[in-house]
């Protein structure tokens, strides 16, 4: 086998090994590369900064543990931003999940962020967690018409909603001013839009994994989606914008190196392909 043929058909295990080395290296020895700010992270920050005072916001954890590497950093950064503004703008934040592992992921976030002591927000007054809403799109539809009957008790303290002042004026989708969804797939934005945005006009902003980004484009162009946080790179940019570099920024060197490897492999593969072709190998 000639060297060109070998380059054209590198064994999978060597590519995996290279990928592993390229990702591991910057995690062990951070490169500290500059991070240019893209339009999506800017738009996300501006949208959150411009949320009107006294707004009631649903944060929906529409992902499980498998989505954590890409979505967890943006969830932490967004919750930091929202909770920081809660006191000055009197936000009411309702945390739900249409994925069954969502509440457990949010538990991890609570352990890390400790909102009561860090941001001074009061559970049951400034924010509340209602837990998993089963039933996918049906559950979303049912939640829109009657939130209390879908989740008679909260998730964290398991007490009736009537005991929490925050829930006094939150009954249906009409009482919600914004939904922030972090999602990896179905149920996700299309289901939310069908059951909340179209009938009630509820605005949406969404943080999603990289592979979902192309599918979000039509919703962004139509105005049904107001802002999009597309994957880890934008999360890192957002962390820098809000002055709180965290998990995403620390992972961006690894993203850069893994993307560099992909580009190198594509270039090498095509050079070998054309060289073989010109020699009549293929």
């Amino acid at each position, binding site marked *: 086998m000639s060297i060109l043929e070998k380059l054209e058909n590198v064994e999978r295990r060597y590519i995996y090994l290279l*990928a592993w080395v390229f990702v591991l290296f910057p995690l062990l020895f951070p490169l500290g*590369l500059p991070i240019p700010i893209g339009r999506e992270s800017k738009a996300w920050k501006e949208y959150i900064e411009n949320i009107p005072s006294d707004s009631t916001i649903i944060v929906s954890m529409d992902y499980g543990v498998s989505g954590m590497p890409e979505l967890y950093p943006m969830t932490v950064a967004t919750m930091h931003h929202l909770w920081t503004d809660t006191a000055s703008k009197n936000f009411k934040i309702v945390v739900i999940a249409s994925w069954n592992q969502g509440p457990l992921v949010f538990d991890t976030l609570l352990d890390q962020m400790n909102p009561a002591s860090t941001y001074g927000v009061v559970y049951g007054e400034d924010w509340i967690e209602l837990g998993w809403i089963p039933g996918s799109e049906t559950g979303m539809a049912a939640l829109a*018409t009657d939130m209390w009957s879908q989740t008679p008790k909260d998730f964290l303290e398991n007490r009736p909603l009537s005991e929490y002042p925050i829930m006094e004026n939150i009954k249906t989708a009409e009482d919600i001013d914004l939904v922030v969804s972090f999602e990896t797939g179905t149920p996700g934005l299309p289901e939310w839009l069908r059951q909340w945005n179209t009938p009630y006009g509820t605005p949406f902003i969404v943080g999603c994994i990289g592979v979902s980004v192309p599918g979000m484009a039509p919703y962004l162009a139509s105005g049904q989606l107001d802002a999009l946080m597309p994957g880890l790179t934008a999360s890192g940019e957002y962390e820098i914008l809000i002055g709180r570099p965290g998990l995403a920024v620390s992972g961006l060197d690894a993203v*850069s190196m893994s993307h560099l490897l992909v580009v190198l*492999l594509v270039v090498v593969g095509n050079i070998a392909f054309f060289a073989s072709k010109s020699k009549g190998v293929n």
Partner: protein
Amino acid sequence: MSEKLRSIEIPIIITAICTLLQVIPYYFNIPVIDQASAIERDWMLLIVNMAVFVGVISIGQVHGRKIMRRRDNWEYSVVLMVALIIMAITGLPIESIGLGLDNPIYNFLFINVMTPLGSTMYSILAFFITSAAYRAFRARNIEAALILVSGTIVVMSNAPLFTSSLPFLITWKNWIFDVPNTATMRGVMMGAALGAIALAVRTLMGIERGYLRGGGAD
């Protein structure tokens, strides 16, 4: 009488009524229909929750059989069954005896087993994508060359390593995202929506019977 009860028309009528109960409130504001629709949604949620038990029973049957017959890799099934039973029992919502989501064993398994396993499964994608990009991104013809160029631009535009020195990549990526990608995705969505409407109409009219009796003739 029993023949009439077994008639294929009955499930078709039930399907039609249930479907219309969900569709009509979307377009018209009729309080009685709205109420019926809400009740039906509650029923659906109950059925969904019951389906979880069916799933657990099914897993038990499949892996139980595998373990009993010592089929290939039956050891993994033992691990799965043990984890399933422990998570199910410790996660039962009976706080008075220390069970539930605050149970230390449940939390330990979630944080130290499920979370790293879930992250690992997702991370494996990076290896597959790298390998797939290397094999698939070959400029064999004009169409493949277009995908190769646009794909490479998008990959590079997502890495600060490239965008910090070649900022025009971000502009190029934005154009790809806003114009060809949006146009294509719109086409895909509209095609899928038209297909879904056609399927719904066929189902409502009783022409599509794939969900009944395995799709056989009545």
